[in-house]
């Protein structure tokens, strides 16, 4: 199942709707890479609220997306990781280091506002 990517101002929001296969994740990565360029987005939010399992492949892909988008000039923030999922991930040593995380969509937007304002790229 494909992940819808919504444009919200200068940001893109990828809202995951159901359990994703590995292929779906790769598809998401490719789509985001392309859209960030098209819309000249400054930030990307990936909402994983519905996922009740985030395995090593998903973690690696999400981290890959974040690093890739950073190189394309956009900040990435993962939002909505559930308590049980968070702890299970840590137990497995999957910590998403170097990737921004926030509680939910609202917090994610606030996080991006803060980060993109601070980065002195074309703001001043």
């Amino acid at each position: 199942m494909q992940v819808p990517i919504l444009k919200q101002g200068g940001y893109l929001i990828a809202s995951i709707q159901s359990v994703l296969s590995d292929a779906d994740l790769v598809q998401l990565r490719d789509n985001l890479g392309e859209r960030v360029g098209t819309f000249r987005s400054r930030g990307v939010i990936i909402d994983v609220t519905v996922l009740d399992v985030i395995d090593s492949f998903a973690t690696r892909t999400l981290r890959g997306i974040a690093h890739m988008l950073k190189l394309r000039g956009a900040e990435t923030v993962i939002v909505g990781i559930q308590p049980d999922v968070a702890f299970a991930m840590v137990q497995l040593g999957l910590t998403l280091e170097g990737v921004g995380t926030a509680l939910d969509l609202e917090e994610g937007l606030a996080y991006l506002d803060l980060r993109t304002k601070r980065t002195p790229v074309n703001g001043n």
Partner: protein
Amino acid sequence: MKKKPEFKIQNITHPSAPLADYNDPLLRELVAHLRQNRTQLREEWARRITDAQLLTAMTKEEIFSEATSVYDNYVEVLETGSVEALQAYARNLSERIIPRGVETHEVVGIVLLLRDVLARSLFKKYQGEPELLNRVLDAYEPAANRIANTVAVSFVQERERVIRQQQEAIRELSTPVLQVRERLLILPIIGVIDAQRARQLTEQLLRGIRGNRAKVVVVDITGVPTIDQLVANHLVKTVEASRLMGASVIITGLSAEIAQTLVTIGVDLSKMNAVGDLQGGIEEAELLLGYKVISTAEPAAGTGTKESKS
């Protein structure tokens, strides 16, 4: 109705112990003897308890009155063969004396003393007739053993019940998650953290973050004396899991021992935000959240003069 309690008794006492024949005429004679010498034997027993320095938490009068009740119950068990009344009494007694710090060995000790006192009196009575003495003891011993067993088991059961109750209470009270400000939670932890409590703590913290939409959590472990490697690792994992949920954790009140443990097991300290005490932790959290605390009181006299001078 009548069968149920009987089953319970069988369960509590040793199932393979031979049941004494309570219609044994010898046992009846025995009971009569114990009834006759009630006052004297009771006093002897109370005296022996004091001599052996048992039940030091109780006064002499209390010991004597409890001794009387136990003695009467004891004789009744010998007579009827039913330990129900004694069992109930032992439970009740345990309930009363456990909070006063009476130990298991004391309870077992006094019952064995009574057994000893009564056996001695029997020896004295049947001194001249070894044949009869043997038969009396054959009747007396199993019953006495059973009584001692019942009392000790009742005491231990009562004690375990109290312990269970207290554990439950501790578990319920153990991890409060408190909101101090919008987006700021504190978790004061007091007492030893074992693996189970650590798990519970993590769960409560992560749920608290979601429930209160927290951005910063201050975990205060001033009241934790030591932690082992397992729990320390768990703590670090909790910090990382919190980050995945978008909250940063500040640990405060790390004692020297705990800090040492963390260093020894090689925890990645770049992920741990540690501040000396709770006050410092809350100030740090306010900084992260963008709060600024301003005193609304009048400026102190000292500061005022200083300012006017400069």
